[in-house]
């Protein structure tokens, strides 16, 4: 059942569940952040509407900087603004920022602990038709490997909005990962969100779970459907939304592993270095259990519809279900 304490959207499993894009959640969050805190500024590299920074730019034109198609400049200029007390949000597509400008982010933002928020939209294969060049599948790895930066990958539009508002207050660098397509609305305004906190969204009605599914980003809805279907097949699971990949909620992950003794991770990202790797690092050191990884297996993407691509690269519902059954067999 859905965790009754989290006040999740009761319509999650309806076919007409409301859809909203995370970038819109970000756009609304940034607008609100701008109203609350006058130090919030926005910078964009010629993708203001695509990344939905236009709400902020229209309302606060004097606090918005258009740098042109120049992602290296985007983040280094933001670093300088942060040095003068601003809280800059820089948005672009994830493949360009933090893809193209990694060393600039390292030297001028994380190294100097400047509270710049890098917002990478259009992450994952669900960008779809634009093709492999525009599908960031390595960005979580690129960002989480750096000291001194939070990495947040929301599970829906409302969480993206909450994350945006939360990042204003952290006083440190952050990466916010967004997917392009509309995704089902899973949470409500009342669902708790905290940086460094993981929540169990799905749990067995009674008894212990046999497998823990840890998911981040746009695959969250699929994982919840899988959990519901598996319940009918007699397999009890818990689904954890791990939107805060760094800092990572060690306690919650270890507790889930202790209960289930088998974990599946799911993300729209390379398996190497992604969220699943982060979970494996935690478990290998604290409570090793068999794991299966859902994600991209060392490949680049291509054109297609988001659903086609998610199926093709082994991240669809059936793949998640198979991974659960596989890891169940591996349990000691």
């Amino acid at each position, binding site marked *: 059942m859905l965790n009754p304490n989290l006040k999740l959207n009761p319509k999650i499993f309806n076919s007409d569940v409301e859809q909203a894009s995370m970038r819109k959640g970000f756009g609304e969050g940034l607008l609100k952040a701008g109203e609350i805190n006058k130090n919030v500024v926005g910078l964009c590299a010629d993708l203001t509407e695509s990344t939905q920074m236009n709400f902020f730019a229209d309302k606060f034109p004097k606090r918005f900087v258009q740098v042109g198609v120049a992602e290296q400049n985007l983040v280094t200029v933001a*670093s*300088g*603004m942060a040095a003068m007390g601003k809280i800059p949000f820089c948005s672009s597509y994830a493949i360009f920022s933090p893809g193209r400008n990694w060393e*600039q982010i390292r*030297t001028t933002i994380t190294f100097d602990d400047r509270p710049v928020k890098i917002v990478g939209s259009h992450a994952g294969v669900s960008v779809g038709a634009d093709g492999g060049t525009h599908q960031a599948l390595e960005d979580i790895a690129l960002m989480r490997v750096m000291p001194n930066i939070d990495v947040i990958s929301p599970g829906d539009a409302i969480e993206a909005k909450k994350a945006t508002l939360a990042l204003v207050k952290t006083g440190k660098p952050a990466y916010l990962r967004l997917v392009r397509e509309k995704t089902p609305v899973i949470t409500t305004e009342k669902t708790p969100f905290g940086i460094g906190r993981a929540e169990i969204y799905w749990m067995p009605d009674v008894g212990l779970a046999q497998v823990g599914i840890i998911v981040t980003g746009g695959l969250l809805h699929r994982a919840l459907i899988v959990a519901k279907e598996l319940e009918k097949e007699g397999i009890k699971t818990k689904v954890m939304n791990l939107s805060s990949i760094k800092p990572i909620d060690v306690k919650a992950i270890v507790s889930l592993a202790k209960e289930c003794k088998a974990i599946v991770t799911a993300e729209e990202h390379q398996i190497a270095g992604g969220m699943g790797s982060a979970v494996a690092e935690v478990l290998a050191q604290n409570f090793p259990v068999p794991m299966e990884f859902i994600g991209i297996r060392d490949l680049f993407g291509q054109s297609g519809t988001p659903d086609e691509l998610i199926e093709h690269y082994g991240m669809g519902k059936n793949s998640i279900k198979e991974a659960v059954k596989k890891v169940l067999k591996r349990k000691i």
Partner: protein
Amino acid sequence: MFLSEEKILELEKKANDIRMSIIEMLVEAGSGHTAGPLGMADIFTLFYFHILKHDPKNPFWEERDRVVLSNGHICPVLYAAMAHAGYFPIEELKTLRKFGTRLQGHPHREYLPYIETSSGPLGCGLSQAVGMALADKMNKKDKDRFIYCFMSDGEHDEGNTWEAIMLAGKNKLRNLIAIVDRNNIQIEGFTEDVMPLEPLQSKWRAFNWHVIEVSGHDFGALNEVVEEAQTIYEKPTVIIAHTIPGKGVRGFERNYKWHGKAPNKEEGEMALDELKNRR
């Protein structure tokens, strides 16, 4: 700011002391860059002892001018100028590049918070200075202080540098002043052989900057062009300062081989003897 003949003599003596400190710290460290720091010693002396609005006893003073050193590898001259200005003891210069030092091989703000930015990887500094100037413009503080960015000629090879130049021109950042160390050398040789930059003046001008050229070793002329830069209200200004790499030690001057290495003990003593005789 008015610069008297007496003050110029005083600055010349100070620059010579700073050059001696640079040699001493590099010999002690056993590695580091020599030519750039010696070449920029006059400019850093003029700024730290005449131009900058700063207070070494109160390094985080909010109203201070901001100094961004983009080509972090010339940090011996920054550290020496800061030590002589009173930010930290001159003795500490001998810890350059050693374990636990505040004076890291390239500037690292976590260890030395008195600097505005960490640097070393080239091409970022001007963008950071642009960000500072943009923030000042938003806060209507751009009449109250200047953002100075010291940068190298070699880092014009970086695309990031031109992205910054373009954005500053677009936003007419009047309190932004870039100072280019035009010493014509980079690691592998002369800039015009490795990657020609000329006509450098015209390039900056084409990006809507006010451009001034000057000798990097003439205190009077340097002071005048900084004054000129401060009076330009509709554009950012770049001062292309022609410097002699290794300036002050004849054996090191104009030789790109001294870009990236430190003098050994013997070479250091020879250099110090020459500098002592100039006192």
